[in-house]
């Protein structure tokens, strides 16, 4: 029977739908205004700034040491990386050389931060797509990392561990053994997640060919970190501009091919394994007996002395006071840019000195801000259900984007 088709006079029109800022899958306060044609996304405008605290303005009015706790609250899933990044940038500006032990400790701390940040990402990404179990596997593992951070820094979450010229405190005896034990057991957790997800039919269907961005577009849109690498660009600050002696360690940069959510997943999973390798190698360099603080008196004057000495010796108390009030002198109106490979991507610090211990201008080039910019390109032409997968695969942290 021939089906009769006739014009009913019905019109279709696009629908504008608001997503966020209180949506559970936007990983914070991200608002996206979607224009929908049925189930297809024809336009998307992200709105950010709901978590803007004006950290750059505050940083212009505080001493550089006082800025360190604010960096904790930027990318709050990997605070150690931010602390160390700021310290390295200021050390570049004032031309300060840290000790070998401090270097090794910073490498280990920032790689542990990377692993714990990626574990949160896989947990929330899977949960957004309806997979409940990986959430618990990943969070259980991450809890062990927080315990290590607790022992290392005294705080589980907002650690403020970096100090200009060094670190807040030395490690307790035997902590390196605990870290080694932890990273040797983490691959078990990653393998479990691997078995749950990588060849899971639903996971592949929900992630492959979702949120695709080509190599050229990714470079043109200033995408960074694992998202850039998933599009097939071999770029990692640790390899390109090695800092903290990363050139001494053997590790590989995982690179994707298609630039879709599935590749971003694969890249981050491999990155965790590579970070474990770096930590293992760095632990071999760790010398428990060496001093975290430099030997000569002139250098000791430039940054915080160990806490035990402050409480027992007069000179160190004076040092502490002088560092807290005067601090490092930055060269007037000289500027530097320094970037580290944070878990989310390239975290850069642009500092203009002022002649005192307060920066004339401190600008953060935050990775999430640059990554979210590509969202309209990724979402366009996709299905509305894939919006959640695309946003989660970018690994946004709104504290980082809004600053």
């Amino acid at each position: 029977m021939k089906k009769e088709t006739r014009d009913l006079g019905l019109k279709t029109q696009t629908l504008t739908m608001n997503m966020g800022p209180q949506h559970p899958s936007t990983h914070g306060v991200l608002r996206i205004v979607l224009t929908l044609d049925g189930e297809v996304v024809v336009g998307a405008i992200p709105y950010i700034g709901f978590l803007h605290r004006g950290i750059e303005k505050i940083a212009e009015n505080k001493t550089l040491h006082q800025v360190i706790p604010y960096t904790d609250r930027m990318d709050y899933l990997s605070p150690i990386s931010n602390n160390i990044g700021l310290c390295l940038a200021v050390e570049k500006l004032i031309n300060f050389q840290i000790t070998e032990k401090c270097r090794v400790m910073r490498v280990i701390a920032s790689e542990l931060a990377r692993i714990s940040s990626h574990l949160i990402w896989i947990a929330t990404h899977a949960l957004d797509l309806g997979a409940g179990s990986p959430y618990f596997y990943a969070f259980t593992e991450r809890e062990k990392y927080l315990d290590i951070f607790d022992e290392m820094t005294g705080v589980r979450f907002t650690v403020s561990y970096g100090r200009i010229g060094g670190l807040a405190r030395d490690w307790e005896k035997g902590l390196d053994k605990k870290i080694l034990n932890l990273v040797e057991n983490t691959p078990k957790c990653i393998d479990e997640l691997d078995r749950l997800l990588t060849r899971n039919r639903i996971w592949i269907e929900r992630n492959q060919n979702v949120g695709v961005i080509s190599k050229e577009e990714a470079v043109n849109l200033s995408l960074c970190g694992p998202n850039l690498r998933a599009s097939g660009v071999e770029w990692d600050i640790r390899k390109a501009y090695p800092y903290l002696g990363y050139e001494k360690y053997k590790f590989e940069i995982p690179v994707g091919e298609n630039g879709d959510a599935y590749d971003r997943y694969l890249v981050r999973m491999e990155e965790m394994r590579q970070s474990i390798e770096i930590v293992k190698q760095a632990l071999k360099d760790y010398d428990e007996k060496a001093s975290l603080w430099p030997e000569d008196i002139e250098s000791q004057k430039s940054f915080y002395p160990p806490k035990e000495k402050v409480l027992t010796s007069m000179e160190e108390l004076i040092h502490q006071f002088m560092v807290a009030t005067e601090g490092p002198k930055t060269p007037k109106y000289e500027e530097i840019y320094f970037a580290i490979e944070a878990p989310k991507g390239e975290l850069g610090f642009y500092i203009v000195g002022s002649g005192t211990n307060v920066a004339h201008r401190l600008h953060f080039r935050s990775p999430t801000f640059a990554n979210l910019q590509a969202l309209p390109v990724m979402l366009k032409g996709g299905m509305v259900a894939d919006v959640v997968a695309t946003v989660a695969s970018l690994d946004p942290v709104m504290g980082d984007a809004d600053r």
Partner: protein
Amino acid sequence: MKAGRTGERDILVAEIYKGWDVDLTETISRLKESLKDVEFSVHNFRGETTIIVKNGDLHKTLEFFKNDGFDYLVDVSSSHYPERGEIEVIYLIRELKSRRQIRVKSALSVENPMVLSACDLWRGADWFEREVYDLMGVIFEGHPDLRRIMMPEDFEDFPLRKQYPMEGDDEWRNFLKPGEGE
């Protein structure tokens, strides 16, 4: 290598921050040849190269670098110098293949901070320039979508300018005070 203050010995800096100072002399001589009418000065500090150009030449210079292979826009930032009455706009660009990295900046007057947008060269400049507009009040001509990005849309001031107060009554000029308007 001994730890501690390294004084003015810049060799040590090169050792710590390996790779940041890729040789740029060829690039700069090419710039000199192709843009003969552009006056610029070069500043080196800690192995980083800064090209300082006049406001009108900024877009031309950036276009040259884009054609020279600088495919990645790292960052756009700004800095206010109240004693000179100037706002600087700073573009940091990079070529991923050769790891060349250069900073191009230009000073604008505070009264009329207008500059040509680089959105036509790198699409990534979009949000970075919006941020500079929002917080510093620099107007980017030719920007496709110049709106505030961090602050509320009805906000009138530019918080990163030095005269914007950090405390006192004046700080509330854009907001309702606690208890007002309820």
